[in-house]
């Protein structure tokens, strides 16, 4: 791993947002998750270099920070596509046909769960209940919740995300 202190890995905006979190917490380490989520919002994922820089900024070891990163499913330690597609596989969506829908989505995008399309547009992941069970089946593309997903409308749905 490169020496984080020597290269300005994090942007001024990222450092400013992280410092803002630190200012409202009793100690800097408490901002670990916030800091990784901030960097991920800027860059899409948390690389080894980003991780090292965050650890340095918060005064904690890289190993400790990585053990936190890998606990949480919404922190990506590998690059992802421009849009992360998360398909709900929990019970209400299951009852309303999530399993066959998943197969349709995989066929439509030509990838399986955990993979990214060759053009780097979409990364496909399973997700637990998105809190919209009365409008099952559901998925989330980027920050947009999509309800009552119709397997026949996938062209239209994915077409909106360039």
């Amino acid at each position, binding site marked *: 791993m490169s020496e984080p202190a020597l290269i300005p890995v994090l942007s001024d905006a990222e450092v400013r947002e992280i410092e803002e979190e630190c200012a*409202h*917490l*009793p100690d800097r*380490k*408490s*901002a*670990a*998750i*916030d800091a*990784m*989520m901030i960097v991920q919002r800027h860059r899409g994922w948390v690389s080894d270099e980003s991780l090292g820089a965050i650890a340095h900024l918060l005064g904690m070891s890289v190993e400790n920070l990585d*053990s*936190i990163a890998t*606990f*949480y*499913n*919404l*922190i990506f330690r590998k690059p992802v596509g421009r849009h992360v597609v*998360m398909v709900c*596989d*929990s*019970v*209400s969506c*299951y*009852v*309303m046909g999530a*399993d*066959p829908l998943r197969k349709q989505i995989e066929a439509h995008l030509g990838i399986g769960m955990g993979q990214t399309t060759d053009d780097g547009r979409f990364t496909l992941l399973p*997700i*637990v*209940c*998105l*809190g*919209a*069970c*009365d*409008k*099952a089946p559901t998925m*989330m593309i980027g*920050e947009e*919740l999509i309800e009552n997903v119709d397997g026949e409308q996938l062209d239209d749905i994915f077409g909106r995300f360039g």
Partner: protein
Amino acid sequence: MAESQRPLTGIVDDVGGLVDLAAYEAHEGYAGAREALTGMTPAEVIALVKDANLRGRGGAGFPTGLKWSFVPQGEASDDGLKYLVCNGDEMEPGTFKDRYLLEYNPHLLVEGMIIGAYAIGAAQGYVFLRGEYHEPYRQLQTAIDDAKAKGYLGQNIFGSGFNFDLRIHRSAGRYICGEETALLNALEGKRAQPRTKPPFPPASGAWGRPTIVNNVETFCNVPCILRNGVEWYQELGNGEDAGTKLYGVSGRVNNPGLWELPIGTPIREIIDVHAGGMQDGYKLRGLLPGGASTDFLVEKHFDLAMDYGTIQAAGSRMGTGTMILMDDSICPVDMCRNLEHFFAQESCGFCTPCREGLPWVERLLTDIEEGRGKPGDLELLDRNAQFIGGVTNTFCLHAPGAIEPLASALKYFREDFEEHIRTGVCPYANNR
């Protein structure tokens, strides 16, 4: 007076969507907080919430006023710090009630937390919000900013001398964060492993300071108790519980959705009247009354009232009050496989019965579902359900919750499990 019968959501219908600060204040908004901070002592607020018989809406139904009273009054710790935390993790499969409140009536939560903070003497509050809740985050952050601009958050609120700041922590995922001590670890920036109890959070919680954790819907009940009083609040409920409850129905009904109803409304009324009954061609076989971690209820239970005591006496839990229906096209074995897949995946990994046992249960269910079941498998499942589900065998209630739907399915739908093993095929396979 629809609104007064539905103090949490009636205003959303009146306003026709998101309730912003102006609309909220036009409907008595922040009157409860003003009353508490300028006219009552903290002890009086706690006594009022106790008398109202408000019980936690996060799943366990713990009396809210009693919980608040466990926080030491006055300068508790050396530095006098205490924390108030809202559990907005809402990751229990089948549950979609807190998202509605956060998205449409966020000032209600802010007001409830101001009152709670005053009652326990906390100067800092956090809303722990699940990471996928982007729209709820935007609405709640706007509400907090607007409240701050008006002086309802910050220094010397309502001229009372009381200070309270409120911030949102956006979670990075994992169901176990909803368990309140795991939540506190996540709030502190750590891995979300549950903590040893005791000490319980009211004695030692966030950063080792006295802390109260309550669900979104719980806090949302508080302002109306302040505004309208204990007697009014108790009359809202049917039976022995007080207030209203957000009930939800998902599955093959004509009108799936969410309704604020008197707590204790019968199950059948919720399904037939509000959810519009089952869709043509589907028959209701069973339901999970309050999320994925509650025991199945079946036909003989459908006339029961949805309240804490009644559902518990029937062998289940009201949980989150959002029910998941299993119709007759759904294979009970496969539905259990889906549920146990969730719980196995979401185990924090700390203790063995949960970390090793739940994946093992999932594999056995997959084998039975896919025609590889063997005689004796059901007895094995029974024994392991009993072991993993024993509340003293694991470090937190994740594993016992995981076993509730399975153990009850093995009881009520046993012939389905047996048929899979006997014939080596899933009789529902053509439905998928």
